[in-house]
């Protein structure tokens, strides 16, 4: 269950080492046990330098991938999890849990309490999930509310102290490092007996409960006979409960309007004390029960001090909020594009913003003729946009020539007809020396437009937290506030004239 060592490494492409160890911590007492348990298969924890090098190579984060390197590129070296074996000094250090997120590599080596040859299955090693949880905890701590590099540096400098609290001997006590930080501050307070370990102290002040529901909608639209369009809503309910007392009990109910879409795949925060079996079994992965549970969804819980994600859910709404159509045609030396967007009548027509991004990549339309000079054409890869003629029925179009990107700014509202269109022709120059955007998906005619929008005080499922149904068992009547918003995420409309990648589910 314990960890032998933890590292934080910043990934720095195009530098000599491609990375720097920003933080590392070893646990010698765990190492002592590893030596006994692993026996002849024991491999010691390397120093930071060799570890950095081996890890970056394994994660393919070294810049050099010009040549085929068997130890990295061989087809039989398949990694299907974020758990690696690192060749170090002729031996292999395994299992190394590692992942890259926002330019930072999080890594640890869990203790395996048996011999390593043959390798036991990962599922049987308790330290793996513990290691992941520790790394996620560090990640949350570093990036929650962090705005710039200075703040990151400050947080990094706090890490040694925090880990000394949260993981003094390599066995994690609390993956919530913010809580560990609070614990240091609350240390002098005498805590009563049944204080939960995940709550550093108690709140003193005006009672209030804040609930916010954020739904993200993603979609893949093809406008094709043989491929079904897909769309999905993913909701996150975030709570902040400022309540007095050690263990205040709160019950929040999420409700749906009569025509609302049922919530599925509900995952809850560990502080939720019980869960209705109808919520537990309502899932999108099998169409076993048609009589989907439509709420109210009750979540009784004892809140932690900090803001937390009470639950996540998905939902399958009957129609996508915006139905799109996108077509790109090659016409001699230019591309003719046509876009139609239609907002569904049931959707609140009041956006915080709404934009359609139309990118072109150098791998697009490789058979297409490019105008190098006036009257001189040759086939090749797309370069920057040189010329654009267009007509929009609504909003305005911005051109980012060097990025080969068109942005259609639709604004706050769709017109009364709920339908808008854009048509035009784009001419490109030859590919310049600088690195043009490359996309492994957009090859040939495969192209997309991506919608970015946000609607406040609205959810697509209709899901809302009824303020009157919030039950709080604590002293004082709390002020209850609820917020909702819908955000687009991965909302793609593919060129209907070319193949497009299909997703399932």
């Amino acid at each position: 269950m314990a960890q032998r060592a933890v590292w934080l490494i910043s990934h720095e492409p195009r530098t000599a080492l491609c990375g720097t160890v920003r933080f590392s911590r070893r646990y010698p007492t765990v190492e002592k046990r590893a030596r006994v348990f692993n026996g002849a298969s024991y491999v010691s924890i390397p120093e930071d330098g060799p570890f950095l090098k081996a890890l970056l190579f394994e994660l393919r984060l070294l810049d050099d991938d010009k040549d085929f390197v068997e130890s990295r590129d061989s087809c039989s070296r398949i990694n299907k999890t974020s758990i690696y074996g690192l060749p170090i000094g002729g031996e292999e250090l395994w299992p190394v849990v590692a992942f890259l997120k926002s330019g930072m590599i999080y890594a640890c080596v869990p203790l395996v309490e048996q011999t390593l040859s043959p390798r036991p299955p990962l599922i049987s090693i308790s330290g793996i999930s513990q290691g992941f949880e520790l790394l996620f905890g560090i990640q949350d701590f570093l990036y929650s509310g962090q705005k710039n590099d200075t703040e990151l540096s400050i947080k990094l400098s706090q890490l040694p102290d925090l880990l000394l609290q949260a993981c003094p001997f390599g066995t994690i006590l609390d993956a919530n490092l913010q809580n560990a930080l609070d614990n240091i501050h609350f240390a002098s307070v005498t805590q009563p007996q049944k204080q939960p370990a995940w709550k550093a102290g108690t709140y003193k002040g005006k009672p209030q409960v804040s609930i916010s529901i954020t739904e993200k909608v993603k979609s893949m639209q093809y406008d094709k006979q043989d491929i079904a369009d897909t769309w999905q809503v993913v909701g996150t309910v975030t709570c902040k409960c400022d309540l007095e007392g050690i263990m205040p009990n709160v019950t929040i109910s999420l409700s749906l309007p009569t025509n609302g879409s049922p919530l599925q795949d509900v995952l809850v925060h560990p502080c939720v004390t019980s869960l209705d079996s109808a919520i537990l079994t309502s899932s999108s992965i099998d169409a076993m029960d048609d009589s989907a549970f439509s709420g109210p969804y009750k979540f009784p819980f004892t809140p932690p001090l900090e803001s937390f994600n009470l639950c996540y859910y998905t939902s399958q709404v009957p129609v996508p909020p915006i139905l799109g159509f996108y077509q790109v045609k090659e016409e001699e030396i230019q591309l003719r594009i046509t876009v139609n967007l239609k907002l569904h009548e049931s959707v609140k027509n009041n956006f915080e913003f709404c934009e359609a991004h139309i990118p072109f990549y150098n791998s697009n339309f490789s058979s297409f003729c490019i105008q190098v000079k006036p009257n001189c054409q040759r086939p090749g890869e797309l370069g920057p946009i040189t010329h654009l003629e267009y007509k929009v029925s609504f909003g305005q179009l911005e051109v980012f020539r060097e990025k080969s990107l068109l942005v259609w700014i639709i604004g706050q509202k769709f017109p009364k007809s709920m339908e808008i269109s854009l048509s035009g022709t784009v001419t490109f120059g030859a590919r310049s020396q600088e690195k043009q955007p490359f996309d492994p998906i957009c090859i040939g005619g495969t192209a997309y437009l991506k919608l970015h929008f946000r609607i406040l005080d609205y959810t697509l499922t209709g899901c809302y937290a009824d303020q009157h149904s919030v039950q709080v068992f604590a002293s004082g009547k709390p002020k209850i506030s609820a917020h909702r918003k819908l955000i687009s995420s991965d909302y793609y409309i593919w060129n209907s004239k070319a193949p497009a990648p299909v997703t399932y589910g």
Partner: protein
Amino acid sequence: MRGPCWNGPARLTMGPLSREAWAQRLAAFRASPSAFMADPEGEDLGRDLLSDLRNEKLSEQTKVSLLVLSLEYPVQLWPDAPAAEVAATSLLDTLVLLPPRLSALRRLLLLAATTALVAGGALGPTSGASCRLLPLLLGLASGSDLGPGFGPTSEQRSLQATACECLRELESCKPGLLGGALGLLRGLLGQAGPVQPFSLLLALALRNTLLVQSRAGAGLRGLLMAGISPTRGGPWDWTLVEEGDAHLQPQAPSWPAAEEGERGLEAREPSPEEARELRAAVAQLLDTTYLLTPVAQAQLLWLLGWALRGLQGQPPALFKPQLVRLLGTAQLTLLHAVLALKAAFGEALFTAQDEALLLRRLTLAAQHPALPLPTHLFYLHCLLSFPENWPLGLEGEEAAPLLLRPQLCHGLLPSLLHDRMALLARLHLLCLLCAEDEEEEEKGLVQSPRGSLEELMAGLQQRAALEGGPRALATLCFQASYLVACCLAGQPTVLTPLIHGLAQLYRARPVLAPHFVDLLDQVGPELGEPLRALLRQEVVSRPGRDEALCWHLQMLAKVADGSAQSATLSFLQAAAAHCTGWDLQQALLRVCRALLQVGGGDGLADLLQALARQLEDPDGRDHARLYYILLAHLAGPKLGVALAPSLTAPALASSLVAENQGFAAALMVQEAPAPIRLSVGSREIKGPLPVLQLQVEALEPIYSLELRFRVEGQIYAPLDAVHMPCLCPGRPAHPLLLPLQPRRPAPARLDVHALYTVPTGLTCHAHLPPLSVNFSDLFLPFPHPPEGTGPGFFEELWHSCLPEGAESRVWCPLGPQGLEPLVSHHLEPFVMVAQPPTSYCVAIRLPPNSRLLLRLEAAQGDGASVALRTDDWAVLPLAGDYLRGLSAAV
């Protein structure tokens, strides 16, 4: 290059170091501990650190950084048990000497002392520091008032938790250490104090005690109910530790190992009272789990689950109330702990419906958009290693659980939009579904698994074909192909489009040749053979003056074989004209080499001759000539061996070295131990010359054996070599006849060498033990005179020996049987006149042209007198020796 090493000026004064000097020194150490410790300064670090902890001039902050260092690197600072003992003692002394105000050092000193003792291997009943630390920790944990030296009361709470952590770590490293404190810990959990540290400590101690006491025979009930007050003053009870010491037990054993452990556990049958007490303790722990952080809850469940597994009177239903709550969470550790309980108890805790629900939750979690990618990947792994109630497949092999129907997996199908690892993991699942799909076509799906697979592979190939795309895209395509080839080797309907797609990919991007070579090396013949043929066709159908010629040649060197050789050769001929650089020429020659290896052919000889003339580079010409000579002079199998990868060269040597060594090994004669045993058999007299009859016994299979003999002293004419086509151990071989042509009638030693081929094609040479040719081996009879004339002929011979010759008399002792058996056994073929049993005349011809005549007369008593004459003086001593030898043998 040495790492940065510390050489601060403050060191020279030998006084305590300043804050800056320590900061500098610690930074240097952290940059590379091994380099720092290799420096002479490094030795003092541990000692300086301990002494400066008590230096009043040093700020608390600096002391904290010193202690933190000691928590990470105790082994470097205090490498052996005595040093660790001294360090721990010093740390404890420092702790006692701290002023009574609030201090960040107390907690760290406890952690540091614990770490030093464990890491240095000093923890034990004979260690003074251990015997001080343990009661101190237990006292702190139980909240006893230890006096003002242990800080203000406000610090007690934090120290209490820390003491629990230290005790837990000590118990982890020495199972059974807290066996005597179980009752106390239970009491503490019930009364006061932080819940989490006590829960975890009690769970661990309980589990360890369960394991250890079954061996020690200590009463569990007694331990659970033992005194409520900490064992202050009294000596620490180490008895259970000594039991546990030999077997450091996994706290959460990996599953297969637990299978073995289970047998040991099943023997445990606690008494009803013990079982009741244990159940109460476990229930007490489980009741308050919600107060623990999620990671700690998971630890508790792992510990208790595996502790109670197979224990009589401990129904796993105790865990049931926790499960629904746990199944609903998104927390990785908690769901993993549920899986551990599933593995530990199986059907006893999870009915078939529960199992289905768990599987559904896992499937859902493996694709839930709110969870991060590493979590998805781990859950996917869990799905394929799911601990089923009734597993069908082989243990340890990834497989889709029986209840995981393809409909459930719809959302887990791979798509080009997925990240590399997610794509491979999902592809693996898809392959497993396709493998099942072979038997039963699933209905009700938008697309069959096989259709999805085909589409995905086509997409991957298209992406890999992208000019200038990153290598990772190509690698991914080949990894996916490999995965499909491994999982679905027996399904031509899947493999055929894959193979054609790959061939097309090569056509689009020959620069991927190294990936193809690697793939062909890794996959089995189901994919490899047809792909090889298609790729060969793809290459040789090209004009040979491609930009990608070097890749084509690399590809061809891998795929060229005996078939379609004329097309291959004409491609090479066309290509030769464009092979201008050294590297291209070498690539071309590598193809020739590959062709040679599979037996060459007529056209190849012409090509090699042409290359030997035409290539610009002298090295290229030399190689071509060498290959031509090899082709012309070596038979097919031998050629194969000569060009095969060298057995002697290390794998990492450069190809040039490997090639040369390979040749050297194959074309040179190898020295070897004797493969046969040779001995001289019974004589057979035939023909005009003495002939040795040799018996051959093979010790290993050998071919084309050539035996060469050399006579020492040249007293015989040189001997011809003897050939045998093949020899096998256990199969009787015909005797070999070796005619001798003596130049003098004298015995000799034959030096024997064997030259032969072993089944691997190597030619070997062995020096055999020498063979002795005896004097009697040279004996030949005179032609038999006509009937009745024998005595006269003998007398004639007898008289003709003198005067040039010599005469002698020898007394031969005889055995009780007399003269007759001696003559019949040794001299029968040479007897000319016989008057058995008393008188014999023997005439022996000794090549080249000597004679030896014997008259043997049996005398009274037990001997015979032998008169001998010879026409050759030199024979006389040999004959004497021979006769004495005969009589000695009697």
